[in-house]
């Protein structure tokens, strides 16, 4: 299980997140990502990206007023 803080990337953290899942995590390993919410669009968008990449979104929680956290288990590719 590894934890990654992407809050410094503000809104364009998707590329970095997918890159981390592809390289740093092994199959069936869990990654916890923390990112800024902004206008709450990133919540839905990140869930969709995880789904279409074939990984399992285990949880998606509000971390605090301005941050959101998702728990991703790496599956497929």
């Amino acid at each position, binding site marked *: *299980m590894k*934890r990654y803080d992407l809050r410094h990337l503000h809104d364009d953290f998707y590329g970095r997140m997918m890159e981390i899942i592809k390289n740093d995590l092994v199959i069936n*390993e*869990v990654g*916890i990502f923390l990112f800024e919410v902004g206008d709450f669009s990133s919540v839905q968008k990140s869930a969709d990206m995880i789904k279409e990449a074939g990984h399992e979104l*285990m*949880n998606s*929680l509000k971390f605090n007023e301005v941050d959101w*956290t998702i*728990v991703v288990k790496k599956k497929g590719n």
Partner: protein
Amino acid sequence: MQVTNKLTPFFENLNFERNDNMMVINFGPQHPSAHGQLRLVLELDGELVTKAYPDIGYLHRGIEKMAENMTYNEFLPTTDRLDYIASTANNYAYAHAVEKLLGIEAPRRAQVIRTMLLELNRIISHLFFLATHALDVGAMSVFLYAFREREFAMDLMEDYCGARLTHSAVRIGGVPLDLPKGWLENLEKFLDAMPANIKLYEDLLTENRIWKMRLEDVGVISGEDALNWGCTGVMLRGSGIKYDIRKEEPYELYGELEFDVPVSDRCDSYGRYRLYMEEMKQSIRIIKQLIPMYSDTQPQLMAHAPQYISAPKEEIMTQNYALMQHFVLVTQGMRPPVGEVYVPTESPKGELGFYIKSEGEPYAYRLKCRAPSFFHAGLLQEILVGTYIADVVTIIGSTNIVFGEVDR
């Protein structure tokens, strides 16, 4: 009786003139080679010490009292401040004692990481001993060389747990963090460079005429006296008694590793110095065996005991019961079973043991920390008599006492 006022303060050596030159001096709390806050009241006949009284308690913070008012996990960071030269040794001794009380075992990967950290701390502590002991006796350059090596080791510790001195790198039930990327390679590089440096120190000191004159037959403790005074660790092995808790009562992975325990029956500071150098080589040998062990272990870091230890972060973030249990364990603290346990471990200074008496409350009912330096400081009272002032400094250095442990 002296009438003291602002102009004529208390004059300790009043009897200097009376009965020839019997003088009382303070090897005061602020002394460059006092290894901390030791006030040694020395009664001198000229340069010869006739009576020594170690007055300790200047760094007393009431750690055992704090232990009774803090839950078990809260108390772990205060154990860093016991022997602040190698704080992972205290964390580990405390965590191991609580695990024995709970009856749980750390997972394999945590054990490998813990043993590596323990041996790395032994090297750090021995380098610190060598540096300060050599500086006290007068060898300046060894001080700088040893501290340079110690910096590399402390960088490794900082990479792992973020702190140079107060590591708190061990948790009850396992290890908080996994090894960062590239840590093992740096450790490998550090271990390859170490033997050359140890050889450098030995070339500088071991055959050095001054060093041998200053250390041989100084601070002689017979085997029977060492046992009587409660000496442990290198002080005991320096007097001919082969007792190393890592060998006799193996804990963690020490049962599987093969290393030998150096013993010398010289009973003096020179013998102990040779033992410390030999132990550093053994520590390197141990870590070298541990590095391959790390790769074939499961990635589990904390033991699985739901009622004592909270679940790993991924379960807490996803399952409700893990979150509830985590909340109760953090706010109220875990409740160990009723009973008492005394668990000795081999810290770089000697046998460091924690006696924990628990009544089933989240607060320990009584926690006694058996610190090796406390009894080595008590030993000074006897072996300093009949030595010269220059030897006093050597003996204090040779007993390797640290005052966070002595005063607790």
